[in-house]
């Protein structure tokens, strides 16, 4: 759109949070022609950085203690994006259209974007606040963890989700003795099917990681440092390091206090607008209705953080939004990549494509005969075709889909929609 036509383009936009989503809103606004002040406020002091490497590359022995910056400092300067790090936004004054920072300063906004992300869910058992009990969300967390993942250290990981398993892999590679305690009966049960769980359990076990399923952690014992993790059945697991990876909760408190509609996430519409039309929210902190299946959901992934940011920047500048990318996620454990496209439901039909014992296979999820999600393990050839077919809600022939010599696209029943 010609810049002259962008409404209010000289007004200030304030963005709270300079993670994946906040930075994408800031850059998106400039690319789309916004000329007003862009103030990017972040609790973390340093240049915004990539989060996925924190539990992957950064933890490797000998790897630099750095995570790739989302953008170089100079980029923010060149684009006239004012980044203020090391201060938190304490409250939002909606009638006055200002935000209050922890240093007492106030900043006026024309449009406000809340991109505060999420934080690690805290374990609430006795002893959970002992030193040596860590979580992983920020670069500081990752560096702290890296310092204690020493060869021979006994590492207990509570929760077999992506983060717990990525840390388990890194710790095992560094010569730690790793035990993963998980309440469910398999790894990654929230996000994937049993065949994929079993495959990854096997990969981890081959590298010496021990799993304890059905484990309900009731306490962490220790005097001035964590020493044991205790489970409901009375078992005690010695640990020099305890890492909790039991999910995240949205950083929605300032939104809630400002009266925005929230419930386990700030509610937003397809344009990223909250219940106040002058305030947007984007990324991990949001809850929204899926355009694919009408479910209310939160998504904690880069794809969602970037795609919502794009919608927000487009809406603020009065431009049409592009179709959102199909949600997708990746994880790498012991060098084996799992990449998921779409959002699986636990009651979807499961079609295994290929032979897991060969280390490379996919799992196709069908909902009422249509492709809803795909997991690819150890290879990526099904990933892009899957994203396309999911976007079309393509009907799939399960027998053809089970045959890896037939491309996924050819397993789609014509016409697909």
């Amino acid at each position, binding site marked *: 759109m010609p810049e002259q036509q962008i409404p209010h383009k000289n007004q200030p936009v304030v963005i709270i949070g300079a993670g994946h989503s906040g930075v994408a809103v800031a850059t998106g606004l*400039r*690319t789309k022609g916004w000329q007003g002040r862009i103030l990017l406020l972040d609790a973390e002091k340093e240049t915004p950085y*990539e989060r*996925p*490497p924190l539990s992957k590359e950064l933890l490797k022995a000998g790897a630099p203690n750095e995570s*790739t910056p*989302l*953008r*170089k400092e100079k*980029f923010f300067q060149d684009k006239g994006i004012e980044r203020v790090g090391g201060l938190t936004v304490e409250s939002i004054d909606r009638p006055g259209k200002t935000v209050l920072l922890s240093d007492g300063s106030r900043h006026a906004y024309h449009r406000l974007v809340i991109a505060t992300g999420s934080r690690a869910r805290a374990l609430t058992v006795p002893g959970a606040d002992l030193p040596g009990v860590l979580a992983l969300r920020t670069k500081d967390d990752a560096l702290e963890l890296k310092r204690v993942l020493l060869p021979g250290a006994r590492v207990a990981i509570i929760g077999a989700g992506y983060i717990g398993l990525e840390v388990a892999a890194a710790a095992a590679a560094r010569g730690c003795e790793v035990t993963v305690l998980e309440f469910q009966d398999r790894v990654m049960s929230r996000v994937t099917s049993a065949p994929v769980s079993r495959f990854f359990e096997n990969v981890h076990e081959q590298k010496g990681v021990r799993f304890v399923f059905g484990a309900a952690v009731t306490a962490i014992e220790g005097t001035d440092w964590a020493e044991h993790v205790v489970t409901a059945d009375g078992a005690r697991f010695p640990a020099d390091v305890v890492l909790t990876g039991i999910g995240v909760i949205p950083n929605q408190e300032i939104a809630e206090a400002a009266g925005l509609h929230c419930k386990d996430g700030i509610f937003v519409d397809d344009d990223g607008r909250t219940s106040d039309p002058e305030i947007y929210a984007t990324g991990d902190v949001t809850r929204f209705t899926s355009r694919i299946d009408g479910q209310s959901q939160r998504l904690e992934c*880069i*794809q969602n953080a*970037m795609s919502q940011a794009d919608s927000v920047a487009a809406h603020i500048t009065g431009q049409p939004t592009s179709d959102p*990318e199909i949600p*997708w996620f*990746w994880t790498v454990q012991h060098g084996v*990549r799992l*990449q998921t496209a779409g959002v699986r439901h636990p009651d979807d039909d499961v079609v295994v494509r290929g032979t897991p014992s060969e280390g490379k296979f996919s799992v196709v999820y069908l909902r009422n005969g249509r492709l809803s999600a795909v997991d690819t393990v150890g*290879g*990526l*050839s099904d*990933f*892009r*075709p899957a994203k*396309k077919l999911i976007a079309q809600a393509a009907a799939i022939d399960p027998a053809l889909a089970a045959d890896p010599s037939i491309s996924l696209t050819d397993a789609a029943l014509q016409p697909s929609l």
Partner: protein
Amino acid sequence: MSNNNKVTVVDREGATHNLEWEPDQTLMEALRDNDLPVLASCGGTASCATCHVFLEKDVFENLSERSEDELELLVEAEGYQECGSRLSCQVDFSRNLDGVTVTLAPEG
């Protein structure tokens, strides 16, 4: 004196852009940081394929081999060229690449 490479980029509408590729950037970063529409959602880890570009054959042939992940993502990409398709996040700065022309691949 600049150590930067000069790059000519042909976008998806066929328009050309001249940009400077700085030594500490991958090709993807040079494109993205100069406002070209590469989403690069995976941050440069050969996971998303939204940074797909075409290089000229002689340039392509002098680069190191594509990894298996890169190749699998590219083969299924729109307009895939056996002797030209690269994920730009996997192309590191090199003086030999001064003056190259990079064409953005179609999205999807």
